[in-house]
């Protein structure tokens, strides 16, 4: 027998041994067990995930923008000005409090106060009597008046609170007050030639409580 023939015969014998081994009951059992284990293992490590999005949620804050007679910060408001005022004279004017319109405009409540100077130390401000109503102006200078009764809790001087209880303004419903300023009929003569400058401050809050 040649060397090549012997090698071929050995290889053939190896293959037969391998197949005999594979055919044995033990090996087949092991293969079966492996199959079962494989299934088990895939079941254990098979993770799935599913996700969904809850979107479309937008938080939008509002705008609080108070307007006085349509302006943000009116200066040079001279409607209530009067010169040569004598006791019993009065001036009156309407101030409209409003807000911007459109989406995002928040309703608000507003209050007001006033400060009056006393540069000449004559204390004219102490003799100016204020009446605030929700009415309209009638008459002409120097005897202008506000119609209606005074708003409950409203101030009566020009150097202190004017409106202390918040009044509601919404984008569709502005608020208007009439301010009447009268020089007290009993004002002392020392007030002759006296002057006072008045600044009214309006505050708004989104707290509607």
């Amino acid at each position, binding site marked *: 027998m040649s060397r090549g023939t012997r090698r071929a015969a050995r290889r053939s014998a190896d293959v037969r041994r391998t197949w005999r081994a594979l055919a044995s009951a033990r090996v087949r059992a092991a293969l079966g067990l492996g*199959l079962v284990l494989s299934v088990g293992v*895939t079941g254990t490590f098979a993770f799935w995930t599913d996700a969904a*999005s809850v979107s479309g*949620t*937008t*938080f939008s*804050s509002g*705008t609080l923008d108070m307007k006085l007679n349509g302006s943000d910060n009116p200066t040079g408001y001279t409607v209530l000005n009067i010169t040569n005022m004598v006791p019993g004279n009065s001036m009156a004017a309407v101030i409209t409090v409003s807000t911007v319109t459109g989406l995002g405009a928040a309703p608000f409540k507003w209050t007001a106060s006033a400060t009056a100077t006393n540069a000449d130390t004559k204390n004219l401000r102490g003799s100016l009597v204020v009446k605030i109503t929700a009415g309209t102006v009638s008459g002409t200078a120097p005897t202008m008046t506000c119609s209606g009764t005074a708003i409950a809790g409203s101030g009566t001087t020009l150097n202190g609170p004017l409106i202390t209880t918040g009044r509601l303004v919404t984008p569709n419903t502005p608020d208007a007050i009439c301010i009447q300023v009268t020089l007290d009929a009993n004002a002392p003569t020392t007030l002759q030639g006296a002057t006072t400058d008045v600044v009214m401050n309006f505050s708004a809050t989104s707290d509607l409580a």
Partner: protein
Amino acid sequence: MKAKRIFTVVVAMVAVLSMLGAPSTAAPKTWSKLLLSRDGHTWSRTLKTPLFPKRVVWVPGDVDTRKFYIRNKSGGRARLGIVIRLNDKSKMVKAHQLQLLVKVGTARWVEVARSGQQLVKVGMSSGAIKRVLVRVRLRSTANNSTMRKREPFSFTVRLTSLPKH
């Protein structure tokens, strides 16, 4: 005889290989494992309406709480995770002027501090339903800088299967 053995081995191997590949290929073919609802009765993949109505104007001190429901339809135990997504362009969250809180089931309220924050991670049994409360508060201390701000946010809700016991 020899061919029969080879055939048996090949079939066994094919069976094993097919089992290994089965979960990843078959899963997407099934229906949603995760469903959402606004009322706990009508379920869908997404919520049809925003949690908070768009036309509501927020002012300092306002607080509102909305809810939605999550249902585990996977047929097995799963882990629920909720992640918040927001860009905080308004800086209101960072500045503690806008407060976002989330509460899942009976768990405690979790406050949102940043985008991508994992708000909850809880187990859900098969078929379980979790109620999610979302509370938004524009703090009463918020100043005028918070006017005219918009802050869109969303939640990514994820269910991940858990091993069977």
